[in-house]
């Protein structure tokens, strides 16, 4: 008797374990007759604008319901590859290996632009500080340790910098914000590239990690001598002053919607849209900027949903772009929009 019970329970357990196999995108969505539900998952950074887009679009097209889960870029890529969601979203483009591991060709579609800004808390300093890329890299490498270091002073003539220690703050959670920031630092500093590199989480040589934009800004605000980095949107919504960063042309640029869009306007956009626009050319370009992407399969089993997504993307790239400024995102340059419109034809 006892044996049967155990055998049965083991079987039940194994059955539970098996259900982990990926469900196809068609099955994963609810199949009520008239409404078309499309599931997506991924980046948290564009979540506010995606929520607004998907709800506005749902009002215009009541038969389409989009269900977006902001679980993080990595999770979005994983779920798209496993086909548990119909579309993914990411702050960093998929790597070649990730694309190879996916069951079919995937299209990257830039939706909006974001920027990352340095924030700091230096007692006695009110004027916005200027940072060169190399200075930021050296601060985050731990080679610049004091606020009155010549590297910082050089960019800020006339500012009386204190002889106090720099407390470095970075993100502890894996994040697209970190990806953009270290991507920029790796471009301007070979030492940073070899010692740290580019990823959503990296091995930081110095500093403390705080969770989320709110964690980083909270810690910077409380700690005299601290420096951190947050999303431009987060800083501007919360009225946190931030520093200007030197761009490739040698100009110190303060992040704004215009200077972020300018970074994308000057970049050469490849056909697969997988491009980093940090340290972009142009006098007006803000150097720590990036696209955020929606990911779709080129060939879908479910043509109705694919068509609905294409329509939605067309709307997001035209009417949708007009409402993003109020949420703090920078709009895509027209050239990128045109190129994407053409690319949408590949999806079916």
């Amino acid at each position, binding site marked *: 008797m006892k044996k049967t019970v155990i055998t049965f329970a083991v079987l039940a357990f194994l059955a539970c374990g098996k259900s982990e196999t990926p469900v196809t995108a068609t099955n994963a969505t609810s199949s009520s007759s008239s409404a078309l539900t499309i599931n997506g998952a991924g980046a948290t950074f564009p979540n506010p604008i995606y929520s607004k887009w998907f709800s506005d679009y749902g009002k215009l097209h009541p038969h389409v319901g989009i269900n977006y889960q902001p679980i993080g870029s990595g999770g979005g890529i994983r779920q798209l590859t496993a086909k548990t969601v119909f579309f993914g979203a990411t702050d960093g483009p998929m790597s070649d290996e990730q694309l190879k591991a996916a069951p079919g060709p995937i299209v990257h579609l830039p939706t909006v632009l974001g920027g990352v800004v340095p924030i700091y808390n230096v007692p006695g300093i009110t004027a916005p500080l200027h940072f060169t890329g190399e200075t930021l890299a050296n601060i985050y490498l731990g080679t610049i340790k004091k606020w009155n270091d010549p590297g910082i002073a050089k960019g800020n003539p006339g500012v009386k910098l204190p002889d106090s220690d720099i407390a470095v703050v970075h993100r502890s959670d894996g994040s*697209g914000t970190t990806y953009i920031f270290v991507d920029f630092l790796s471009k301007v500093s070979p030492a940073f590239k070899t010692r740290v590199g580019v990823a959503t989480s990296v*091995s930081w040589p110095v500093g403390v*990690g705080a969770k989320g934009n709110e964690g980083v800004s909270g810690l910077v605000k409380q700690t005299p001598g601290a420096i951190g980095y947050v999303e431009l949107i987060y800083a501007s919504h919360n009225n946190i002053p931030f520093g200007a960063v030197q761009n490739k042309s040698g100009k110190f640029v303060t992040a704004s919607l215009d200077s972020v869009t300018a970074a994308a306007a000057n970049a050469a956009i490849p056909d697969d849209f997988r491009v980093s626009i940090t340290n972009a050319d142009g006098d007006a370009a803000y150097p720590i900027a990036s696209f955020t992407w929606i990911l779709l399969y080129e060939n879908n089993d479910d043509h109705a949903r694919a068509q609905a997504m294409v329509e939605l993307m067309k709307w997001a790239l035209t009417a949708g772009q007009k409402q993003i400024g109020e949420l703090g995102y920078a709009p895509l340059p027209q050239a990128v929009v045109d190129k994407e419109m053409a690319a949408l034809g590949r999806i079916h």
Partner: protein
Amino acid sequence: MPIIKTSEDRALRLGTGAFAVFVVLLVAGIGVVLTQQSVLSIRKFGLAFWTRSTWNPVSGEFGALPFIWGTLYSSLIALLIAAPIALGIAIFINEISPLKLRQPLSYLTELLAAIPSIVYGLWGIFVLVPIVRKLELLAPEWLKKVPLFTGPPLGVGMLSAGVILAVMVVPLTSSVAREILRGVPMTQREAALALGATRWEAIRIALGYGRTGIIGAVMLGLGRALGETMAVTMVIGNNPQVSTSLFAPQYTMAAVIANEFTEAADELYLHALIEIGLVLFLITIVVNALSRILTRRVVRA
């Protein structure tokens, strides 16, 4: 083998037995799944995973040592702070406090246990960390040469993590300890008092009578401290390093999983994170087993 009288009893035996088996299977199942899902990392790093201290998602080098260290260290600090406080609360409520105060006091300590850990974390960031930073700033130079107190006064770090864990552990430990003390027969205390013992001596006898349960209460608290995630990650500084300093930012196993899991797209990286989960699982089992052995020894002594 118990005597089975009726079909009802038989059904009861089978039903409850199935539930018991289910628990065993669940624990085994967790172990199996964690092992399966971390196989890449286990194969690549082997046992060295436990002793390596590099954690670099870019180069794909992973080791669990700083996280194991941080988890054990912060839990130990929490235990050292929380155990005496929790016992004090339990003794006061049960043995000394006027009857009128007992109910509200025990209600309040239990209320502490119901607060979600993210709220503790926010309290940690905005209240505890600034206080700890001020204390760290007060540390004189000679003290900062002691390995326990080196490093810049950041506020976030091992000390804040230990304190916040202690606050979270106190209600659990004290309410279990209170139940244990309540379970000690009144005759024990009365006998002691009748022999001319002081109040303290009578309480000590009651504590001695219930020591197994009290150690169990402390171990339950340790269990909670080992697995606590949100509040700790918000105040510990999340820097994977092995340091004896209370001022140094460090990291725990639960915190690194919570922080990095969502963005881990690379297979090996994901497997390494799940192996951290496996390590935490094993350490929790070992700690629980040790506490059992310890309890048994105390009872025999």
